[in-house]
Every structure is written in C-alpha cells, then in structure tokens.
C-alpha cells in the first residue's frame, strides 16, 4: 500500500510538470490551431538561461523570475518573427516551422552550453517532505509551484480584462476584432505566456532529469499525451490530463511487469493513440464541428 501511495504521489509531482507543458501546448493550440513541437526546446533553453544566471552568482529565485521575463519576451519574439508571417500558410508549412525552431534552439543550446549533463539545483532541497518517506520536498515544491501557477492563471483569465480579451480572441477571432480587440497581439501574448509557463516546467523538472539540451524530449511527449487526454480545446482538461498521465506513467512502470523504467515512454504514446481512436475530443474537450 505504501508503494502504491508513494507512486501516486510521485506521479502527481511529475504530473504537475506535464500539466504545465500541456497547458503551454494548449494555449498556443487555442491561439493558432497548431501544436508547438518546439515547446520543450523553448523550456529547455529557458532552463539553461536560469542555470547561466545562477552560474553568474544570482540567487535561485532571482534567476527564476528573470528567466520568466526572458521566456515571456522570447515567446513574443518567436511569434512575431516566425509564426505571424506563417499565420495564413498551410499546416505543413507551420509544422516545418516548428521543427526548424526545435532544431535551431536545440543546436544553439548545444553550441552555447555543450551537450554534457549538468546538475541543476533545487530551492526546496530533497529531504523527505514533513518527515514522510512518501514524497520529497522537491516533489512537494513542484506540486506547490504548479498549483500557485494554476491559481494565478485562473484569476488572470477569469477576472482581468486582458484575460477576457485573450479568451475572446481565441474563441471567435472575427467577433473579437469587431469589439476592438487586437487579436494579433493577443496571439503574441499567448505565446509569451506559454513560453513562460514552459520555462517553469523546465526549471522544476531539471533537478530530476538533469540539465542538457535533450532534457525535455520525453517530458514534451508526456505533455502532448496530457493535452490530448484532457482535450486540446480545454486548458482545465490539459491540467487534469497532466496529473493523470503522471500517475498512469508511474503506476504502469511499477505494476505492469516488463514495463519498468525503459518502456514508460511508449505508455504515453499508447495513451495518445488510444484517446485519439476512442474519444478524439479528449476527456474535457469540445468536439470540433465545422460547417462545410
């Protein structure tokens, strides 16, 4: 029983990271109807920035906040330079853009910081949390920061005018323009926020997976699985999906013979395919109906 509780809690902790990645993916998907394959690399690059800032002697939380600001600005710059010009381009052109972005960021990180694995600090420590062997302080910190982030996002989108305008621009762009919303900038803002959310995920998971240019590859696939499971049209669903995927991943690795650590990733892929076949809209998504 203790093993089960332990695995569920550990699943919730990594699930928090998947939830952040899924949320970032969903935010961009809502804004431009494309999956950002480079979301993980953007998060990885941000994490390297924070590491570099700490190498230069800044304390963790200062580096954390500066990285958030850098990622937000970086997300906007990427949208303005690369994806705004592609807004009316066919799907495959956009996909090529995402893959190019993936390769460029990955190579740049390798060029600047090389491909050796680096230790990344945790501000929470890794002692047992509240004296319990079930969960470490870093895992508790991952969950805590994610919960705070989710509350902040909820308040932003529910109670601020700019949040309302962003939702309007994503749901009915033409009507949004007709009430005077600059939808193009709302998309850029969405990119900035998605990049910042991704950077939080990167900085929280880096102590676990260690810092290197390919650290987010697996995490992003879990994030996609989470987004698909929860429904690509539902930010709330993406978050729930993230936690579910974290738990499923851990339980399957523990209890299904032969899965272990090596076959955990195929579980995420199997989950994606199962959801797309059985319930394409996901658990909380709206089925997309288009008039033709």
């Amino acid at each position, binding site marked *: 029983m203790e093993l089960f509780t332990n695995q569920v809690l550990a699943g919730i902790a990594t699930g928090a990271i998947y939830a952040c990645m899924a949320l970032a993916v969903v935010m961009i998907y809502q804004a431009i109807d494309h999956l950002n394959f480079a979301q993980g690399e953007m998060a990885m690059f941000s994490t390297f920035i924070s590491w570099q800032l700490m190498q230069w002697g800044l304390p963790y939380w200062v580096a954390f906040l500066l990285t958030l600001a850098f990622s937000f600005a970086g997300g906007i710059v990427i949208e303005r330079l690369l994806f705004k010009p592609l807004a009316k381009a066919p799907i495959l052109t956009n996909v090529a853009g995402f893959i190019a972005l993936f390769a460029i960021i990955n190579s740049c990180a390798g060029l600047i910081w090389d491909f050796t694995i680096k230790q990344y600090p945790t501000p929470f420590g890794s002692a047992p949390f509240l004296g319990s062997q079930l969960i470490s302080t870093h895992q508790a910190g991952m969950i805590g920061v994610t919960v705070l982030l989710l509350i902040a996002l909820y308040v932003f989108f529910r109670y601020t*005018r700019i949040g*309302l*305008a962003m939702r309007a621009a994503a749901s*009915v762009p*033409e009507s949004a323009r*007709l*009430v005077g919303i*600059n*939808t193009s900038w709302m998309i850029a803002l969405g990119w900035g926020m998605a990049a910042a959310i991704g950077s939080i995920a990167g900085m929280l998971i880096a102590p676990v997976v260690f810092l290197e240019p390919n650290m987010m590859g697996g995490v992003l696939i879990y994030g996609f699985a989470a987004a698909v499971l929860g429904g690509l049209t539902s930010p709330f669903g993406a978050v729930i999906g993230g936690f579910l995927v974290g738990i499923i991943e851990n339980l399957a690795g523990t209890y299904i013979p032969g899965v272990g650590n090596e076959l955990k990733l195929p579980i995420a892929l199997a989950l994606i395919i199962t959801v797309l076949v059985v319930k394409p809209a996901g658990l909380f998504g709206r089925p997309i109906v288009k008039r033709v």
Partner: protein
Amino acid sequence: MTALLNIKALSAFYGQVQALHGLEFTLDEGSVTTLLGANGAGKTTTLRAICNMVRTTGAIEFDGAPLSSRSTENIVRLGIAHVPQGRGTFTTMTVEENLQLGAITRSKSGVAADIERMYAHFPVLKQRHTQQAGTLSGGEQQMLAVARALMLRPRLMLLDEPSFGLAPLIVRDLFKILGKINREDKVTILVVEQNAQLALEIADQAYVIETGRIVMSGRANEIADNEDVRRSYLGY
C-alpha cells in the same frame, strides 16, 4: 444635418470577384438608414467594407477621417459598432462577459452602469446573465449582439440582418428597441435588411442595392409608398 459617414466610389472584391461596383452614399448624423436588397446584392459586403474586412477601393470617411488605412479593430475604436450576420456571439462565455467584451476598448468606469442599462433595455438578458451565451435562443442572442454593440457607446451602429431567423413578434420588439436607442442615445444606425417593410418603418433614409450597385435611394416613407419599387425590389 452633417454626414457622419461618407462613401464614395466604393468597390469591394473577394479574390477576383467584384462584389460592389462604385457605391456612393452618406449617412446623416443621428439618422436611421436602411440598405435593402435581395440575397447576394452586396449588403453584407457593404458593412464589411466599412469595417475593412474585405479588400476595397474608393473612399470611406467617418466624421471626416478616412477609414481605409485602418485595421478593423481600430475602426471599431472610433465608435463604429458592427453587429455581424450570425450575431458573432462568444458562445462559450457568459452573457455578462459578452457585454463586458463589448466595452473592452473603453476605460473601466461606467461599464457596470452600462451593463445595467442594457439589462433595462433587454430584461431577458438580466435573467440569463450567468448563463453561457451559446445556450440562449436565437432572439436572445440577437438582443445580446445588439447590447454588446451598444456597450461600445458607439456613434454609428451597423446591423446586418437583425431579423434573420427570428419570430415576427420578436423582430417587432427588436426594431422598437432600435428606434428607441436611436432617439435616446443619439446613435446613428445603418441597418441591412431583407425584411424591407419593417426596416422602412424605423428608417429615415433608404437605399436599394442590386448586384453591387445602388439602384434607388430616397426618404424611407417615399420608398415604402412607391408601389413600383416595392414590387420590383422589395417583394411585398
């Protein structure tokens, strides 16, 4: 009276297809003008051209300033509210959020009071204010669309077939409210309609449009009384 909107030699294009051919008309400040015509005559295109949502040539002046170089959202910010065909409801948001969105370009002060004013105009919206707008009936959504447009405190309101798909009694109510808004709030109104009879009742001025050209213009009551016009263009 001075002209609030002045349209000269307006042509509009969808790709290679020309939908408007040199339209000329003016809207007097404080008036209600109706643009009548059959399906595909170019009524909707005219409204979309004013808001720069189609490619156009010619000149559109609002209060003396040219609109053609402005983006849709900047045109709206000048005080031109557009109630589009199909109502453009934000279906996944609540009724109250839809109204707040109408005032999103204004400063926050006065918005709450204006929402209450809209509830006074359209009591049914107050009953449903926490409901998702997509669950409203067609008539309620049309009222919401008009209320959302008024939240801008517009100087000019463009309405695209407000009667479409609504029961006759509801249409009558809606037009009564439009007339009241015109008189009390001094909003200039341009309404596009297939339901000519009703539109002519509240309008001061009318234009009849056919295949992208204005074929008839005059005082609304004169157009309504002219039997030839009625029979050939308005079909009643």
